[in-house]
């Protein structure tokens, strides 16, 4: 059975990372920016799993890194959404350009 070379998987994760970065730069909505961050985290996860399979196929260290990244992403999403709801309550919008009170 033929398998996919490692570089192809790395290309996919690189493309996902760059798409997420573009989304982070161009969107103004706080929630869609958070979604772009989730996309970036997932591209990193693919890298960890791919390197775990191709370099150390009998170990599980990469998979545990991914599990802890998912844990931290869940905690981060909860706290970030709480902050977004709080900002919506005080400013009636979740546009990043309306949140100028922390500038300087």
């Amino acid at each position: 059975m033929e398998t996919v070379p490692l570089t192809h998987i790395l290309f996919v994760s690189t493309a996902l990372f760059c798409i997420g970065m573009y989304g982070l730069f161009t969107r103004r909505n706080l929630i869609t920016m958070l979604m772009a961050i989730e996309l970036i985290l997932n591209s990193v996860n693919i890298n960890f799993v791919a390197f775990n399979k191709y370099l150390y196929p009998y170990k599980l260290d990469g998979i545990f890194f991914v599990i802890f990244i998912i844990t931290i992403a869940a905690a981060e999403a909860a706290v970030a959404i709480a902050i977004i709801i709080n900002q919506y309550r005080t400013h009636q919008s979740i546009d990043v350009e309306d949140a100028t009170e922390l500038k300087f």
Partner: protein
Amino acid sequence: MGITQILFWILAITAIFSALMVVISKNPVYSVLWLIVTFFTISGHYILLNAQFLAVVNIIVYAGAIMVLFLFVIMLMNLNKETEPQKSKWLKLAGAVAGGCLLLVLVAGLRHTEKQMTEMVTGDIGLIQNLGKVLFKDYVVPFEISSILFLSAMVGAVVLGKKEPRIPVETEMRKVEETQQAINI
């Protein structure tokens, strides 16, 4: 071309297309739905990479919990219409140039790496039995620390999301005086 490669190409193209749709689509609800498609394709990649448990966890945690939370918040804030203000053309151009430059550099760096083919291993390395053994033997301390992280995140989310009580000061003072009078009587 084996079945693994065909699956890989289908999954890769779907993942990149749906990720682009996440970024491009103007309606945040469609963004979330495309992001769920992306997470499913990423789970497919995990299964191809011998990490079956991780694929299931990815679907449960991301597509099941986090995305539902996002969708809920978007519905709560009435953002489900295509009125999201966009950034200016120049910022879009700058974002495209920055993302494209990073993509170019990484692809150019990856192009000359040697082709690493995997050796065939049995497919059950990523199953829950092996994972559990290693998790509770070698990774006990990070596991416990992540529980503390969850506790603090939960407390933080509740404190941040709590509504302020907003009782006027005078009524509170009056209440205190009334209770004091009641005690004196």
